[in-house]
């Protein structure tokens, strides 16, 4: 089997892994002494696939010959699919050649468990070693920690990679028991804890010794499948928030479950992936990381699922009328960030522009605030937008995105009208002649 065929099998097998960012580490190539490659903290997207997702890394499996049999996974042992295994050198050569043509930002290397976790981990290490030490590659590498591999092997892997991840996959122990009998919550959380610990140690080492080997400088991430099991948004969001706090993760990714197996324990193969739910979870994730929200502000025991019509921030705003309206010319950054239509960038710009003078609505528009949504929640010098009537209904209407409007409100709905019936010619004439 040549590299072309292997690539075809092993990229198809890796496509359900969503973590494809190249962000989190800034590294000048010349300063780091390698011979090719650098890394930008903001991350660089090299292309966008047909599903609209960013492609930044060469995302492949080392092998898809798995000894495990997890029900939700395409690579499960009992599934009848073509199998392939790269050699470490093939991966390294492919990476360098794609990298030189600027197709990719680096390598995302994962693997099914071949023979046993230690063996698999050793092969991943060998691949990364060739890239880093023989080819002097200083570009981005994301490596999957193989649960169950020895601590020393995982540590070595982390010293060669920029980012490491362990996938939680299913958001609860019960679901794991049912669908991934070979995995357990502890088997997943253990390597995660180890990586967190190593990153922390590494931070203190780097203070003490300038040349201490870096351990996963771009941090750690994980991924959860949404919609394969009955967990609610509330459970998932709380778990996410706990992972950020307890394990200091850089990112938690969500992956809408795409049915790949016909199994009575799983949603039917005809089920559409819950893309809107995934989207709402990402919005909430953003609110946790950049907007100062906590998980329990967004959902609680009584409200276990996100509102499908509007995003979690708008939902929060509509439920907290006591906070609003916010005075643009004096509100704190934290408060500005709570206003629908004001994002992190426009909040920063408002703060900056405020130093140079008073802001009015025209200025806000130029700054980039989405007034269509924000106007219901703000005042400039105590004044509302001229002619604006605030009712919960029209606020809600303004907050619904065009996409949601199409999806949920199109059937039988029509343009809102002041008159219930069609205006006739006679009505118009009456109006003009003053009879009405």
């Amino acid at each position, binding site marked *: 089997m040549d590299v072309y065929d292997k690539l075809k099998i092993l990229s198809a097998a890796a496509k359900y892994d969503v973590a494809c960012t190249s962000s989190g580490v800034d590294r000048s190539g010349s300063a780091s002494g390698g011979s*090719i490659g650098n890394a930008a903290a903001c991350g660089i997207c090299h292309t966008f696939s*047909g599903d*609209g997702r960013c492609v930044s890394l060469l995302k492949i499996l080392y092998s898809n010959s798995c000894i495990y049999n997890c029900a939700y996974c395409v690579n499960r042992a009992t599934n009848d699919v073509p199998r392939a295994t790269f050699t470490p050198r093939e991966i390294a050569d492919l990476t360098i050649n794609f990298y030189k043509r600027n197709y990719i930002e680096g390598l995302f290397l994962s693997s099914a468990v071949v023979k046993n976790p230690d063996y698999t981990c050793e092969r991943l290490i060998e691949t990364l070693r060739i890239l880093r030490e023989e080819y002097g590659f200083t570009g981005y590498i994301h490596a999957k920690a193989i649960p169950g591999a020895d601590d020393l092997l995982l540590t070595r892997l982390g010293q060669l990679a920029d980012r490491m991840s362990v996938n939680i996959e299913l958001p609860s122990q019960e679901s794991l028991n049912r669908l991934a009998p070979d995995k357990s919550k502890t088997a997943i959380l253990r390597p995660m804890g180890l990586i967190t610990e190593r990153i922390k140690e590494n931070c203190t080492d780097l203070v003490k010794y300038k040349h201490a080997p870096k351990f996963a400088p771009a941090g750690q991430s994980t991924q959860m499948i949404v919609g394969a099991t009955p967990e609610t948004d509330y459970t998932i969001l709380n778990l996410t928030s706990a992972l950020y706090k307890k394990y200091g993760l850089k990112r938690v990714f969500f992956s809408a479950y795409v049915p790949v197996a016909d199994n009575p324990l799983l949603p039917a193969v005809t089920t559409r992936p819950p893309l809107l739910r995934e989207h709402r979870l990402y919005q909430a994730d953003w609110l946790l990381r950049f907007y100062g929200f906590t998980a329990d502000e967004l959902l609680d025991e009584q409200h276990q699922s996100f509102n499908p019509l509007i995003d979690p921030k708008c939902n929060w705003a509509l439920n907290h009328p006591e906070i609003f309206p916010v005075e643009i010319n004096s509100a704190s950054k934290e408060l500005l960030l709570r206003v629908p239509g004001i994002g992190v960038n426009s909040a920063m710009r408002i703060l900056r522009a405020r130093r140079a003078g008073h802001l009015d609505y025209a200025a806000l528009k130029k700054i980039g605030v989405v007034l269509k949504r924000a106007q219901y929640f703000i005042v400039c010098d105590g004044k509302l937008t001229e002619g604006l009537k605030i009712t919960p209904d029209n606020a809600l209407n303004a907050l619904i995105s065009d996409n949601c409007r199409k999806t949920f409100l199109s059937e039988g709905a029509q343009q809102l009208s002041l008159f219930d019936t069609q205006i006739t010619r006679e009505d118009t004439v009456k109006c003009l002649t003053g009879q009405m």
Partner: protein
Amino acid sequence: MFDRADVVYVYDGSFQGLMCCIFECFVRKETPAAVVCEADYQPTLNTLVSIPTDTVKSKRVENGILRKTSAAAMQFVRDGYYTCAPDKDLLILKFVQLGMERGAKVMSMLGDDTVSALTKAVMNRSREAHNYLGFARFSIYGEVMVSVIEPKNFVLPIIGPHFCDRYRNESFMIYDKTHSAALIYRPYEWEIIHIDSYTEPETQDDEAAYRSMWKMFYETIAIAERENPKCRMNHMPKRFWSRLPEMDEAVSALKGNQEPPHSLESPHR
């Protein structure tokens, strides 16, 4: 302080030339109706004022900007000069007028028409430059690597350092077709030169093999159940496609299509 005047400043298109236009507007205490580069000048009813480029004057203006405003504002002016905003020359002139009056604070006046328009132009350029960090594709011909780009803004000064650092042991050229310029790198120095045209050489076997592997990877990585052409188009507008090997088929499909592509698949927003 400045009167609106019905005159058009015409200069040679260089940065120094633009600085001299600014010098002139301070001498004449006026804001011209337009500032245009010789090559783009079309006679109008306004009186033409031809501005000669004088390095002494341009240096004085630069020093003035640095003294009265800030280094950040000076950089902003340079960045503005490299944008593709059609009225960038006049915007820069007005920005400097405002800066001389208000000082360093001018950089924060985001609600002002001039500042906000120039900020948008500069942001548009940075965004395009960032796109090209990912969308520039290199082909390898023996010992050299070549990339052809067609940016709207002049982005070579921004993307240059990134690629020179990334491929520090290689020799390469990035050819900017729109601006007839090329960045030439040999370890370890680079320069941007004027270049009129460039014909791509025949590709070699290796090159073709990696391109086809890349195309196949691109096709394979997409999840069919999640297909979302609109989202792809928002992130990767069509004007980039012609230089991306993975979009070859999509581009030829578009060309074969009789209907204008815009009505079919224009981005939603």
